């Protein structure tokens, strides 16, 4: 466990120093995207993975974060620095709203309700065009600045660090939460609800708290996304955006936290790479869809599990731990200390 924290901190420091080496604006843009999506998937993993809540509406929290910031800054003239935490609070409130039906339902119905919720958000945004800009979205969102330094300057350097910080803080906090009493309670409910109940774990309360906690970083990431692109568009709630982010989660491996974060990196870079090949946008999405299906087919536990198997094989070959080449365990069991 300590090694895990240590590696996260080492990667963080490396990423802090990276702009000194890589000065290319395009790469910086890709890293900013990665950080923001990584924040979203890490927080999504808390509900979908660790808590076992079939929350497929996480994208709605992201969109609500985007639109809260967009509306506050353009329509009400709120300072972006103040609007960012408010985005987090708004998504927490939205999570409370979603929780009302979600806590009463099980299984597939949770999927349907959460999906319907994200579609509803899109419909609301499209229909209330006086406030949200409708299909055209909101534009000209003011940038973040400190004094006279605009975060958009020098290739979005400010957003690079803001995104990195949000991702780092989220990952560390979630790692802590997963190992905490609350996180253990959530996993107990996921794995054996009857037993957890018998041991006095409050199912409704735990699931509610998990939903609210996972919504907050997602809202802040949405706010940052809105500030970085300086627009808020209804596509944020769409099926394709949802599929894109969900693929990071499943390709990375549920309940591994770091797997999805790594997959966010891989998928953002891959999809940008695919962009340069054919002239049609459609081919990129089709290729991504095929890759997702192949990974799910051949690496059932996601890439985190594939990586773990590989590491064990290497260790076994070196003869450090000969017994370990036996039956593979799931990534989920691995994360439980």
């Amino acid at each position, binding site marked *: 466990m300590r090694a895990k924290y240590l590696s996260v901190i080492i990667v963080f420091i490396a990423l802090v120093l990276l702009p000194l080496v890589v000065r290319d604006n395009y790469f910086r843009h890709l890293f900013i995207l990665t950080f923001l999506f990584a924040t979203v998937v890490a927080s999504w993993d808390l509900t979908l993975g660790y808590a076992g809540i079939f929350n*497929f509406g996480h994208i709605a929290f992201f969109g609500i974060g985007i639109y809260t910031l967009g509306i506050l800054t353009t329509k009400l003239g709120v300072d972006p620095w103040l609007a960012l935490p408010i985005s987090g609070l708004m998504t927490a409130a939205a999570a409370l709203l979603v929780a009302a039906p979600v806590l009463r339902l099980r*299984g597939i119905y949770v*999927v*349907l309700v959460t999906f319907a919720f994200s*579609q509803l958000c899109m419909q609301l945004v499209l229909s209330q065009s006086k406030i949200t800009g409708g299909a055209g979205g909101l534009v000209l969102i003011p940038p973040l600045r400190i004094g006279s330094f605009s975060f958009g300057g020098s290739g979005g350097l400010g957003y690079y660090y803001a995104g990195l910080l949000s991702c780092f803080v989220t990952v560390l906090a979630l790692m802590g939460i997963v190992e905490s009493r609350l996180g253990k309670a959530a996993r107990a409910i996921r794995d054996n609800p009857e037993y957890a109940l018998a041991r006095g774990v409050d199912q409704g309360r735990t699931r509610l708290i998990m939903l609210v906690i996972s919504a907050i970083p997602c809202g802040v990431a949405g706010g940052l996304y809105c500030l970085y692109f300086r627009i808020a568009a209804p596509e944020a709630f769409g099926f394709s955006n949802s599929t894109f982010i969900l693929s990071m989660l499943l390709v990375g491996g549920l309940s591994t936290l770091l797997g999805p974060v790594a997959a966010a990196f891989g998928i953002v870079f891959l999809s940008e790479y695919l962009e340069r090949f054919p002239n049609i946008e459609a081919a990129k999405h*089709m290729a991504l869809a095929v890759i997702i*299906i192949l990974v*799910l087919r051949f690496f*059932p536990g996601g890439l985190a599990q594939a990586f773990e198997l590989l590491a064990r094989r290497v260790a076994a070959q070196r003869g450090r731990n000969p017994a370990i080449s036996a039956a593979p365990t799931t990534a989920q069991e691995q994360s439980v200390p």
Partner: protein
Amino acid sequence: MADAIASILISGLVLGSLYALMASGLSLVWTTLGIFNFAHGVLMAVGAFFAFQISQSLLPYAWIGLPCLLALVAMIFVGAVFEYVLVRPFYGREDMVMVTIMTTLAGLTFLENGILAIWGPRLKQIGALAPGTLSVGPVHLSWQESLTVLITPFVLAATFLFMQHTQTGRAIRAVGQNRKAAELFGIPVQRMFALTFAISAVLAGLAGMLLGSIRFMTPTMGSDPLVKALIVVIFGGLGSIGGSIGAAYVIGFLEALLVFGVGLYWTPSILFLIMIIVLLVRPQGLFGAAERLTV
């Protein structure tokens, strides 16, 4: 006033028919395979575009019903291939429900963008099965709409009879109820799964063709009906096909009423609100049995 009531009734019936075709396919797949097909909406678009293409290039002078029939036959293969590629590899996995949500979403992305790549983003329309309008007293409706309303109950009844009274239909239901026992009785389970998908793809394709001549066709034409079908199956209970069909008409009328009463913009929000209230009071859905299927 009579006009308004009539138009609400008609539009409710048309919407209800489309939703019933969609929701019954979703329910069928759910009860048999225990998975939820998020690509169900795009299958609608696939059916409509197939019919469009066949009528354009193969049978330009024929009555539109013929291309539609051919496209429906093609949908059988689409459904079976869909099951073979996206669902079959994942049977028996512990997280099958979750994984197939992802694979069907990936299938949705693939097909939607495939349609976009082949046919482009321009709006298209299939010719009407029967042109002109039908007037009964003060009520005017296009023949296409009336055919939609009339065809749907027949198709649904045929599906119902097939499921209840044929050997194959019973086999499909047996697989849904107890897969192991069905296997022991010698029912080819995999083939039944493929067949189920084929049937639901045909139902979705038919809905697409009917919609494609009332409104315009786009690659994303299925996403709005899919969301409505989601609401329908939440209302009706996913486990019961009859419940889904009943709920489809309820939602269709409700939507028509709401569009008339509060306008197009507020309708989705209010539908959602009503759905939440129903769930809070009756978590098993409006017509659902008392027990809830867990995953």
